[in-house]
Structures are given as structure tokens and as C-alpha cells.
């Protein structure tokens, strides 16, 4: 996005001029004061105009689109995507022939792309944005799988009275397990280990600790 320069007898005048040049409202632009100007001596000698420069703030959707288009092409994936605004975050939805490669084993590739895209676009934007990426309903399917897994393992813990340690999961995935079992009268959950190998443990609820 390129800068435009504008000047006026006051900063306010220069600012108005810049907004007019860009054809934008003030919340859509970023503005820098280059020279605050001066009235000069007796308003005659040494008059200096106030000068500002301004440009349109990069729009998140555009920055996300540009970066992802390049990455998808560099990986060589046959997928298309849409960027949609949500409350307090942006949702990117992928579809196409290569979504399985894009998702990767247990969502590993999709999560990696989400992390790197989030870091990369936030470097270009003034206001921090949050990103969530999904591909053909993967996130919902994964959540259902985890809920079923949690319930199945709960049965095992009840039967054997032995705790079960799950495989390493992302914070979001662990949250799904904790939430699924939070009101279960028979088992309790906790997390153990360090990222990225942090795991959920499901153990028999100790007597007297029912809530």
C-alpha cells in the first residue's frame, strides 16, 4: 500500500487533504506527521506548511489471502480457500482435491499453517488478528472423535480402576477432553508433560471429591 503526502496551513488541514486524496475515512488510514509547520515571523517570513503522509491500513483479509495464496502454491496443493470475518477472529476454510494432505496427520499440517500464517500476517498488521483454519469440516469431526474417545476411555477407567494416559494433543484438543468429562461422576482429568507432548490423563475420581 503506497503512501500519499499532503500539506496544509495546519496539521488538521493537511490531514483532511490526505483523507481526500485517499478517498477514505480517518479510521481506515494510518497517518504520520512529517512536519507540524510553523506560523513564521509575524505570519509573513518563514511560513512553513504542515505536512503529513498517509496510507490505507492493510486490510486483514487481503493480507491473509496474499500470504496463503503464495504458501499453497509453494507447497503445490490443489485447494481453494475463503477468508471470512467472524466475531474477533478470521476464519479460513479450505476445500479441494488435496485437503487431506493439507490437514495432515491429526491436523498437524493445518495447525502448522495456522500458526505460521497467524505470525506472518500479524507482522504486517497494526491490530492483532486471530485466525482459525478449517478444511471440509475437519475441526468438528476431530472434536466428535475426541468426545467419543473420551467416553470410551472413561468406561475403561471405570472398569479397570486404572488411569489412562492419552497421546499428546494440542491445547484445544485437550480442552475438548477436559470439557467432555468435567461432570463425569466416575473419572477426573488432568494434563501432564510439556508442550508439544502434553497429554491428558483420565483417572478414577477419588472418593469424597465428587463435586
Amino acid at each position: 500500500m503506497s503512501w500519499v503526502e499532503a500539506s496544509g496551513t495546519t496539521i488538521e488541514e493537511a490531514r483532511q487533504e490526505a483523507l481526500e486524496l485517499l478517498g477514505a475515512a480517518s479510521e481506515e488510514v494510518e497517518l504520520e506527521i512529517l512536519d507540524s509547520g510553523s506560523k513564521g515571523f509575524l505570519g509573513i517570513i518563514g511560513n512553513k506548511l504542515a505536512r503529513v503522509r498517509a496510507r490505507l491500513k492493510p486490510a486483514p483479509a487481503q493480507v491473509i489471502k496474499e500470504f496463503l495464496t503464495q504458501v499453497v502454491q509453494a507447497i503445490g496443493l490443489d485447494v481453494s480457500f475463503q477468508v471470512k470475518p467472524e466475531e474477533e477472529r478470521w476464519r479460513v476454510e479450505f476445500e479441494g482435491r488435496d485437503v487431506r494432505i493439507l490437514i495432515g496427520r491429526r491436523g498437524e499440517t493445518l495447525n502448522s499453517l495456522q500458526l505460521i500464517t497467524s505470525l506472518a500476517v500479524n507482522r504486517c498488521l497494526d491490530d492483532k488478528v486471530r485466525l482459525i483454519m478449517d478444511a471440509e469440516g475437519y475441526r468438528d469431526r476431530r472434536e466428535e472423535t475426541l468426545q467419543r474417545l473420551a467416553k470410551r476411555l472413561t468406561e475403561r477407567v471405570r472398569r479397570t480402576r486404572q488411569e489412562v494416559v492419552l497421546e499428546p494433543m494440542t491445547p484445544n484438543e485437550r480442552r475438548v477432553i477436559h470439557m467432555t468429562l468435567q461432570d463425569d461422576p466416575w473419572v477426573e482429568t488432568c494434563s501432564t508433560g510439556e508442550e508439544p507432548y502434553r497429554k491428558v490423563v483420565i483417572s478414577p475420581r477419588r472418593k469424597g471429591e465428587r463435586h
Partner: protein
Amino acid sequence: MKELVELLAKALVDNPEAVAVHTQEDDSGVTIELRVANEDMGKIIGKQGKIARAIRTLAKARGAKTGKRVSVEIQP
């Protein structure tokens, strides 16, 4: 492969001009050597190697697409 790693690295660091990527290919697959400015190492590796792992995962996706085994080495 080179393009991908270069694109990701340059988007994450403060000194994109210092990003250098070399690839070596042999029977066992592709080895990618990524160099960034010293001060950018943290931005490329991340907490507990989180960002480095994400870069490797995406490079492997590219490898899966082309049928090659990929490893990424990161050096200052």
C-alpha cells in the same frame, strides 16, 4: 521446496535479506539448510521449537506432494 522454506522464513523474520536457503538432494531425500540472522533465530525456532516444527511440517507436506523425504536444518 527452496521457495517454500524461503517464503515462510522471510515472512517471519525482521531481516528477510539475511535469509539464505540451500538444498541438497540425494537418494535419501532433500536436506534444506536455512540460515537467518542471529537475532532472528528466536523468531524461526519459537518457544520449545514450535515454529521450527511448523516449518518442517509444511516442508514435509511439500515432500508428500512430490514423494520426497525432507529434512530442514536451521542455522544462524
